[in-house]
């Protein structure tokens, strides 16, 4: 999976390619995103391309959060489409993740005021 990565100051913005994150490609995503989850890393996942996420996809994103939190880093999400947002809400994950509408908002959230 070709992840598009942008650095904004010390924040890593990862843009998920493709419209779907399901059981078929969730493992691949986990493998690809793994090296980015450095200690103290500040990561923003840009989900704006995704039109569909299933429970496996959600599980892989949850895995990212847990890895980063364990290593002193943090993860923020942005650009969720309606069905993706619906899934997150269905399993109450919107309470676990910091979710922002735009990428800038997410990045900005890392900046200390």
């Amino acid at each position, binding site marked *: 999976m070709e992840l598009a990565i942008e650095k904004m100051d010390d924040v890593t913005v990862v843009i998920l390619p493709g419209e*779907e994150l*399901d*059981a*078929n490609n969730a493992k691949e995503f986990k493998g690809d995103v793994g090296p980015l989850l450095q200690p103290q890393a500040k990561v923003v996942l840009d989900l704006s391309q995704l039109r*569909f996420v*299933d*429970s*496996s996809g*959600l*599980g*892989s994103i*949850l*895995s990212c*959060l*847990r890895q980063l939190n364990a290593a002193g880093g943090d993860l923020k999400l942005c650009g969720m489409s*309606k*069905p993706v947002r*619906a*899934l997150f809400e*269905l*399993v*109450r*994950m919107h*309470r*676990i993740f910091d979710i922002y509408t735009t990428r800038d908002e997410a990045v900005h959230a890392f900046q200390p005021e």
Partner: protein
Amino acid sequence: MRLGFRPSIWLKLAIFIGVLALLTSGVLIWTAYMFARDMLVDQIHARLTVTTSDRQAMLLAYIHQQHERVRLVASRTRLRQLLEEHADDKIADVAFRAGATPILADAQKSAEDFLVIGIADLTGTLIAATEETYLGKDVSAEPSFVYGQHIAYLGIPQLTRGRYQTFLSGPATAPDGQLLGVIMVVLHLGLMEELLADAAGLGQTGEVMVGTQRGETVRYLLPPLHDPEITEVPLASTPAMAHAIQGYKGFMHTTDYRGVEVLAAYQPVKYQGWGIVAKIDVAEAYTPVERLRLALLVLEAAILLVDLVALYVLARRFTRPIMALARMAAAVAAGNLEARVTVTSSDEIGRLGTTFNHMTEELAASYATLEHKVVERTRELVQANAELANEIAERKRAEEQLVQAHEQEVEIGFKIQQMLLFDQPPRDLPGARVAALTIPSQTIDGDFCDFFKHSDCCLDVIVGDVMGKGIPAALMGAATKSHFLQALCRLIALSPSGKLPEPKEIVTLAHAEVVRQLINLESFVTVCYARFDLERRQVDLVDCGHTTTVHYRHSTKACTLVQGDNMPLGVSEGEIFEQITVPFEPGDVLLFYSDGLTETRDDTGELFGVERLAACVQTHSQLEPEELIDQIRLAVVAFSNSERFGDDLTCVAVKLAEPELPLTQVEIEMASDLQELARARAFVREVCQNLPGTPLDEDSTSQLELAITEATSNIMQHAYGGRTDQRIQIDAEVFADRIVFRLHHLGEAFDPSLVEAPAFDGSREGGFGVYIIAQSVDEVRYLRDEQGRNCIYLVKNRQTT
């Protein structure tokens, strides 16, 4: 109680000792008294007798002395001369008197008690006297003169001028013995009086009396001491004097002249019939004995008093240790085994105390032993109890195990029935809803049922009952079932055009296969084989001696009973079975059952019966078959008042409906590869976007996409375990009000009850799938399809316009 006890024993002793002392001293006193009195009486007797004799002798001596004195006077010579001269008249009276008087006076000089001395001539005229008054006095009538002519004589005393005196007389004779005259002396009896009055030794009341008889009276010569006025008393009133006068001598207890009791000694004086009595008052005589008696009585009273005091002291000495013992016994009775009495003596009571103490020690010892034994016994009992409890618990466990085993047996029987004998009715039949119920009895029964779904429009229902119970019946049922299936398969195979064989052909063939075994086993099977043709709306029915089928007709709202006339299977070889055809309409219900249902009995033994069953079906005809059957079950339970039945209860209900055909029907088949997930979603989106009528909204479409993706990936990853070479078929049927997706696969069946609840706190990355599916559609079922494949059945309702 304690207060009453002491006087009681004391009183008893006092009464006993008192009576004893009284009796003893009474006898002693009485004896002493009698003895003393006898002695006294003897003594008084002797004294009185001596006194009597003594006085008598003295009296007699006195009399003789007086006689001598008078004779002495008469014998004076001068006097005799004078008398001779006078008698011869030689001298005159005056001369005589002058000569004699000095002589008489001389005689008087020497005798003071001679008051007067006179001489009477033979005519009894006093011719000379010392006192002139006596001269010429005629004394011829005097006894003294009469007796005095012959002997000296002392007359009866007379009280004259306050003095007792009498005539003492004697003859004055010549020397030749010729009587010349009589000497008459007036004698003062003072000496005699003194003699008799001396009652020395006779006490205060003693006296000596002399008396003589005069006619019937006694005349006392001297006045009585106590009453000098009395001189004469009747003879009878003084027996002692009477005896004396009569010449007896003796002693007696009698009464005297006063009527007073006296002791008297009496005897004759031996002179002129005189008697003498010496007497003493009884009262005085007995005074010493009375005094003795009084002294004895006082003594006795004193002894009694001393007795009682001694008794009281003694009784106290006895009762005190007894009281102490009683107190101790009370203390011991109250449980104080330490109580002891102080033993101060070595007598019986002391020994009793010692024994009592010993007994109490023994008691304490044995009590301690007993206590020990009780403790021991209690411990044993507790142990025994525990053992008993264990035993009971074990027995209970064994019973529970037995019950469990029994339940397990029933369960096994139920499982056998469910697995071998019962098939689940098809649920996906468009034109009919079928429900089956079986309640196994305590024993394995031979009820069975089977369903062959030939197409959506054709269903065979077989309900049978093997005669008998237990494993043989169950196996026979299973065998019969398989023979039906076998017969069906063979007949289908033999059919050139693929035409479905008739039920009667199937039954006939199956019967031909099993009849020999059934006859050998002496068993038979009743069967009802029904084929529902939903297109033609008719049921072909082969009834082989089975219970009548209840047919509820929607059009008439009433039940009819359908019954064929074939024999049960296994009765005769070569049997040809006939079938009957019954038409039906939508809304009709056909109910097949085993005789266990209608032959259920109530408490009075009445059968449930087919009429009651038909009525029940009629009442609940509007319900779905599952609910209808449940109502029948409830009715039977209520009727028999029991949840358990002697026979298996088997019941199959078929409710016919207008078959609902989907508006569109599409399907897709794919490999069990995760790469196919996108295709599955595309299929869903395509179905949803091409719905007849109102299209599905975007949110519902997304939800269906999600649900199908989750279900498909579950099948791929779990049912097929990740193998990618297996097949998954997804078909979709669109109805006016819903969309139905069915995911068929041949992988492992999925049991949603084993799935863990999802973790909403982000602690687990997986486990959301089943939850997501359930939340995304309106109905989820995990079932087995008519081809035996596992199937996930999803329904999403759509808004109706």
